[in-house]
């Protein structure tokens, strides 16, 4: 009996003593933290994808709270509206950013860009890229082993087994930019996202001259310059036999799509312009 009382007493006293010590230590070494960091973190999507340039959502929310000017900070996953509400909550000015979407710029599907050899190594685009140009004759096109698919944390990319190309699901894409870094051929670009996922872009990155492109792929850009001539907004530049449509200048007028002789200019979620009877010039759509 005596032992029992003694044990309870000793442990009780020890417990109270340690509790008091801990209380004072906690007071002395208290870390002051802005409670808004937690609140802002809750408003962020919590994907920890790194698309903002920070290590994770926590680091981003710390930056949002601590910096006076948050115009350079943007969470591509949350999007403009969420950033606005965060800015309102913090009493700061929200960054103005147009929504973006990743675009895969290769149109060389299996039927258009035939395979000329058989690859038997590790199924990884970066590995293929260390060996040679790939299974087709085009040195710039999609390899199709899905390094980008593995890099995407939002399930927005998938390899279409029929075409052998990677497809972007614009609704799931958050424009975090992981695929841009992952692709060894540099095929991805973050482009302005139009309503209803409309898009016009040159689906080719081949810097070879036309004759070489034609041999390797039926839908490559041959740098003929027809699209550049027809563009009313100076949105198209041609460099190294490759056309590029500036997403900031393009107004989706669709004239270039009909001009392209190889179909390298892709049009998505829009109808092509009807083929015109020759002389009458239509107004550029806006």
């Amino acid at each position, binding site marked *: 009996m005596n032992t029992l009382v003694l044990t309870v007493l000793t442990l009780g006293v020890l417990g109270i003593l340690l509790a008091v010590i801990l209380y004072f230590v906690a007071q002395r070494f208290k870390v002051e933290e802005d409670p808004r960091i937690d609140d802002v973190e809750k408003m962020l999507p919590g994907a920890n994808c790194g698309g903002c340039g920070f290590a994770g959502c926590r680091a981003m929310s710390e930056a949002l709270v601590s910096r006076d000017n948050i115009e350079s900070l943007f969470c591509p996953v949350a999007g403009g509206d969420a950033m606005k509400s965060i800015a309102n909550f913090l009493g700061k000015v929200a960054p103005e950013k147009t929504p973006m979407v990743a675009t895969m710029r290769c149109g060389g599907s299996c039927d258009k860009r035939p395979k000329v050899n058989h690859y038997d*190594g590790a199924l990884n685009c970066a590995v293929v890229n260390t060996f*040679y140009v*790939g299974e087709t004759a085009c040195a710039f096109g999609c390899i199709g082993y899905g390094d980008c698919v593995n890099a995407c944390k939002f399930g927005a990319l998938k390899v279409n087994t029929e075409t052998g190309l990677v497809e972007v699901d614009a609704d799931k894409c958050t424009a975090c930019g992981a695929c841009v870094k992952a692709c060894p051929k540099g095929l991805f670009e973050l482009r302005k996202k139009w309503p209803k996922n409309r898009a016009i872009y040159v689906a080719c990155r081949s810097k070879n001259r036309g004759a070489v492109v034609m041999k390797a792929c039926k839908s490559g850009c041959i740098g003929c310059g027809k699209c550049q001539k027809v563009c009313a907004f100076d949105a198209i530049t041609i460099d190294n036999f490759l056309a590029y449509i500036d997403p900031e200048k393009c107004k989706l007028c669709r004239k270039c799509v009909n001009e392209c002789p190889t179909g390298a200019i892709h049009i998505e979620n829009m109808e092509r312009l009807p083929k015109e009877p020759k002389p009458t010039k239509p107004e550029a759509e806006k």
Partner: protein
Amino acid sequence: MRMRTFPIGGIHPSDNKEWSKGQAIEVLDLPNEVYVPMIQHIGAPATPVVQKGDKVVTGQIIGQSMGFVSANIHSPISGVVTSVDAYPNGQGQRRMMVVIKREGDEWLEEIDRTTTLKRECSLSPEEIIAKIKNAGIVGLGGAQFPTHVKLTIPDGQKAEVLVINGVECEPYLTSDYRNMVERAEMALIGIEIIMRALQVQHAVIGIENNKPDAIEHINAIIARDNYRGIEVMPLKMRYPQGGEKQLIAAVTGRQVPPPPALPISVGAVVCNISSAIAVYEAVQKNKPLIERVVTITGKGMKSTHNFLTRFGTPLNVLLERAGGLPEGDVKLLNGGPMMGRSIVETSAPIIKGCSGITVLSGAEAARGKEIACIKCGRCVEACPMGLEPYLLSKVARLQKWDVAEEHNTVDCIECGCCSYSCPSNLPLLDYIRIGKQTVMTNIRARAAANKK
């Protein structure tokens, strides 16, 4: 006596040299057109100094070396430049090449084309190295490292021994072997000249014991012509004995420290036996590096050859002379099956580092089905650099570059022993190579940032 070899790792693939080792060196007919790449060496690409329409003669410089680690490119034939443009190399990548259409067979006047041997050399080391540099000589074993850079000893270090690589450990290839059997006199004079340039008294020719006739032949000439300080060392057959560090370990017993240390830090300079012949021709005959012996081999080939081929000759020409490609799927390799790079473009030219073209049938080349790593440790046993390939491959797959760096992935010599020995058929080297490249880029970026 037990024969020497390198201390750790290594494998013993069947050498498959019987297909082409009996074929004497044949001089390939002059090609009608050559595609001469401006990069046939490690380092900065050469700059073309000819234009479309220019007339060139054999041996004339057409690509000027840029910087110290670079090499001159000479015209392999005489004729007219028809184009200076990007054409696909063996891997399908487009590289700057000078295309020359042949007209006759004119040579630069200073080139001595007689076959008489000339042994006396009274040039100073600097003059020899300058001549080698002008002749655009690179390591002909496959790495294509400019020879003049190798022979220029950094301040504060001293060469003690010249190691000549006559190992040719790569299966199938026989170009070095044929050179040793047929052109040993030239090689020995070349070795003497390199010894003079390095100011060393001792040279060792390492030859694997699967080439006993080469060992005997060279020994006989050394005794007959009284070559002082040159010794032939038979080595036990083991791959990758021809690796620079492995060869030094086998011949001298010294271990080269990890990068950035070079073989010179243990007093050794390694040079390929075919490069020694090129040195002889450059120094004694004023003949730049415009041709080499290329083995065409493979079990399915109608005939196998060792061609003395001018650089820039399209691969098609050689294959046609050998009776064309066998039926069915084939894999073409620039080099042998262990370290060779697969070729997808048969119009690609022969370059300085191409010691052979190996033709494998689709079945021979096919990789086994990949299954999970069973942690058996065979790759660790096989690695001649003492690395852990299973780990390096895995961290590269997971893109953990810092771990790869910690485990010395940059030491990898890409010999392929790990992939060869893996019972699970894992593509170990494929991933390690990515890890190595990424880590090297990271290290260089850090060094550049530190400089600022």
